[in-house]
């Protein structure tokens, strides 16, 4: 085995934040106790679509202990939010577009008083026609939910001539796939707290994936100077995309602005379910064609996602679904289209994979159907078509480096071949059917075809101590640990010697959102850039002291020394003092923005991402044909992450993604208006989990920090496709709608004649 050249990269060091978390000391938003803090509660419309005729708060204001009832009129700045398109008011004005729309905000001394006041607010509505699904919203005379109409956005990706190419295809498969809304269901319900500090700054503690975006929105909403608002990311109990939108930050900001006293707002689980974003439900029509050898020639996709009342990340979801519609396969003729449509449901937004998991369900089903039709092995057809170095994807981008899809397939192959021979054929109860299935995936790292830079700052003090300042929100995935490893690697110190200041808009610069699996790659590069600048000035000072060239120096144990010679060294404190005395800077800023080329507006051709992650998962399932129960026994998961900066963290992402994928495949279904609490919505427990065999594939990305890409979302994407393909293998019947719940599995097994075994 080759010994790694790295000291920190690739090491399973202790997580930065774990000590507080296992002792119960970590302060999540709901744990922050501000003296004499008051309570906030939102009145939500409770109706799908209506004009607000009048809001009367007089009775509510008479209740003792009620401090203020806010409505849209109390918002001093712009009453609109949205990271991509600004269409969502903090408090409804004019009309409401979903049952979750906030109409009034009550500030009171206690929760109980606030709840009482909600009941006393008298709102007069005139109901409008509710549009609950895509079909209704697109009907000819449908009322407009927003002024611009009900289609928010359409993304097209067109390459070659799919229409003509289909004429020459040997195998053509055309199917419709449907997926439903999914709740993120992080275990920490949304919460926040805030106070006004002695300088008059509104300080807001947030459970967030993007503190700098929150900051911008609150500043804009209040119409105040940027320095008047400070967002501090509290310890955050998961996000998975939902905490990219503001949850309570705007309400807290508004109350602080007017009342200038400490506030706290903790959503109940029920309010979190009702009011926060969901995964977009999709309808996908997909047509693919191959030659007689199974080579994919053409693809046509018409997909539509339901974004509910507001855009949130809907445009990004539709864009990702379109770009990733080909799957990790080279296809010459591409005609992909995905639209995003408003309805009167609670808004849908980002959730782990932004539409790619939905698209992957379609393309991975398609490729298996082709394999079956052509009598080609499912692994073989993926090998035939898989993207490799030099391949050109659907957007016309040539993939030049770090294309590890074939390595993922190769890693899974021994398990696949053995299972095909042994496990599938082993005798079970006559009512238990076994099957295996593959799921492939690719995923662009970072935001799609737009700038999405990160910045970081590193500082050394006169005692030689290094501090890294980053706006990158660690929501539990471990980015703070990863970034400390990257800085430490550059400076030859231990990761725990890097002091970390994270997610505080007063102290840190914008690192962009913790989303799109981008932080290791993009913020990692920004940190590396900052650390290298600091390293360079330290080296220059070292040259002056040690009288040898830079190339002969190395970083070691908080010192710079002549390579291999511990006696000729100088420590960081001396170097820092020297630099300072000479008027040099001890603080350096790093920056990275991945190279992308925006889409051509007509054809969608461009370079949407500078690098992609790849994966293949193999699922082993048992289906009980009498009950419809599906037991996922094992998942082998091979993921090309570029370079695993912290392998156990990568495994944690893979296993967590698979759990979410099992839920997406088999059990999760958020029914608007019906799913109210965790009694009605079931996420996988440990008893639902398969054995997971994670395989880390490292295909160095030259533009990544020490070769790293990302894994957060890729972990989830292939799981549901692999399970659904395995179910088809077990039952001899394919399911086209997710989740494959008991009813659907039972129906499939009845249709394929398994119900009465011979």
């Amino acid at each position, binding site marked *: 085995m080759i010994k790694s050249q790295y000291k920190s990269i690739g090491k399973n060091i202790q997580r930065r934040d774990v000590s507080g978390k*296992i002792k119960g000391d970590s302060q999540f938003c709901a744990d922050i106790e501000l003296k004499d803090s008051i309570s906030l509660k939102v009145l939500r419309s409770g109706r799908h679509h209506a004009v607000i005729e009048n809001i009367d708060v007089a009775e509510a204001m008479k209740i003792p202990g009620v401090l203020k009832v806010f409505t849209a009129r109390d918002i001093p700045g712009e009453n609109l939010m949205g990271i991509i398109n600004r269409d969502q008011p903090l408090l409804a004005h004019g009309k409401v577009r979903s049952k979750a729309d906030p109409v009034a905000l009550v500030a009171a001394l206690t929760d109980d008083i606030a709840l009482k006041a909600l009941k006393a607010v008298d709102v007069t509505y005139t109901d409008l026609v509710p549009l609950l699904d895509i079909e209704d919203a697109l009907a000819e005379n449908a009322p407009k939910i927003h002024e611009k109409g009900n289609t928010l956005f359409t993304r097209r990706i067109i390459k070659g001539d799919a229409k003509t190419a289909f004429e020459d295809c040997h195998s053509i498969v055309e199917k419709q796939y449907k997926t439903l809304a999914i709740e*993120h269901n992080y275990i920490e*319900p949304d919460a926040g707290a805030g106070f006004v500090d002695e300088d008059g700054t509104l300080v807001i503690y947030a459970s967030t994936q993007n503190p700098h975006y929150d900051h911008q929105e609150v500043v804009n909403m209040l119409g105040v100077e940027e320095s008047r608002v400070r967002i501090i990311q509290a310890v955050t*109990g*998961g996000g998975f995309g939902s905490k990219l939108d503001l949850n309570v930050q705007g309400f807290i900001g508004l109350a602080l602005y007017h009342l200038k006293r400490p506030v706290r707002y903790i959503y109940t689980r029920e309010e979190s379910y009702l009011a926060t974003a969901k995964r977009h439900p999709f309808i996908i029509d997909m047509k693919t064609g191959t030659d007689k050898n199974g080579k994919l020639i053409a693809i046509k996709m018409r997909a539509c996602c339901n974004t509910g009342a507001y855009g949130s990340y809907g445009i990004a979801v539709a864009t990702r679904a379109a770009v990733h519609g080909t799957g990790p396969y080279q296809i010459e003729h591409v005609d992909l289209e995905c639209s995003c449509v408003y309805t009167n449901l609670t808004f849908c937004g980002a959730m782990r994979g932004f539409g790619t998991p939905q698209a992957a369900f379609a393309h991975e089903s398609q490729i298996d159907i082709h394999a079956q039709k052509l009598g080609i092995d499912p692994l073989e057809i993926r090998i035939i078509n898989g993207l490799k170095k030099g391949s050109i994807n659907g957007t016309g981008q040539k993939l030049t480096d770090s294309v590890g899809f074939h390595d993922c397939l190769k890693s899974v192959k021994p398990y696949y071949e053995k299972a095909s021979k042994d496990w599938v054929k082993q005798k079970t109860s006559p009512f238990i059917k076994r099957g295996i299935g593959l799921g492939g995936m690719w995923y662009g790292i970072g935001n799609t075809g737009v700038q999405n830079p990160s910045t970081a700052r590193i500082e050394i003090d006169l005692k030689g101590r290094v501090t890294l300042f980053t706006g990158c929100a660690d929501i539990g995935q471990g980015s703070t640990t990863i970034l400390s490893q990257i800085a430490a690697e550059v400076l030859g110190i231990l990761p725990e010697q890097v002091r970390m200041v994270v997610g505080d808009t007063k102290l840190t610069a914008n690192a962009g959102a913790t989303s799109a699996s981008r932080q290791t790659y993009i913020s990692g590069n920004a940190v590396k850039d900052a650390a290298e600048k600091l390293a360079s000035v330290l080296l220059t000072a070292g040259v002056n002291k040690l009288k040898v060239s830079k190339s002969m120096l190395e970083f070691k144990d908080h010192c710079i020394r002549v390579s291999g010679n511990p006696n000729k060294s100088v420590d960081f404190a001396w170097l820092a003092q020297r630099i300072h005395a000479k008027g040099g800077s001890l603080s350096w800023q790093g920056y990275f923005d991945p190279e992308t080329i925006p889409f051509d507006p007509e054809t969608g051709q461009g370079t949407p991402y500078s690098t992609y992650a790849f994966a293949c998962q193999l699922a082993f399932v048992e289906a009980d044909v009498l009950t419809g129960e599906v037991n996922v026994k094992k998942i082998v998961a091979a993921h090309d992450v570029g370079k695993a900066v912290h392998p156990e963290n990568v495994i*944690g992402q893979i296993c967590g993604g698979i759990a*979410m994928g099992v839920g997406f495949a088999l059990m999760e279904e958020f029914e608007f208006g019906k799913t109210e609490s965790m009694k009605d919505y079931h996420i996988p427990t440990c008893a639902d*989990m398969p054995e997971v065999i994670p395989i880390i594939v490292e295909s160095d990305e030259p533009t990544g920090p020490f070769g790293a890409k990302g894994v957060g979302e890729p972990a989830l994407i292939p799981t549901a496709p692999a399970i659904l393909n395995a179910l088809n293998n077990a039952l001899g019947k394919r399911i086209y709608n997710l989740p494959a719940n008991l009813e659907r599995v039972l129906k499939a097994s009845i249709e394929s004649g398994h119900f009465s075994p011979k």
Partner: protein
Amino acid sequence: MVNIKFKINGQKKALNIHDDMTALAVIRSLLKLTGTKEGCGIGECGACTINVDGKAVNSCLMLGAQLDGTTVVTVEGLAAKDGLAPVQKAFIENHGVQCGFCTPGILMSVNALLQEIPDPGHEEISKTLAGNLCRCTGYSQIFTSVKEAARLAGQGDQHG
């Protein structure tokens, strides 16, 4: 209002509480022990798990009045003065923690399990933790952590 006396994390407490107050509210709001979390309020997620007389209990489903006469341990009471409990060490070393919101509840479920069954098998761990939801980890590293905790505890690395 009702008077209750109980022992929590080694300390005696005498409180006068509202009749309808949950044990979770007593612990979080009155005693300011915020390590115990509220994830759902209806006994589905297990984030509020505490140990009452050695048993794992969802504190959101328990009335504060029922604490009277009991001995309670919360996550803050797991560690001995001279260091972490085996279960805490095991979760750190085996990467059983991501966002950490479910962690206190899981640690308390495991703590009760190991007191009852010092060397639990996969099925016993699975049965115990099926009431503690985690959305981050996929449970795999949690299982490894629990097995390691049992091993450490068995070696005499006992709490206290």
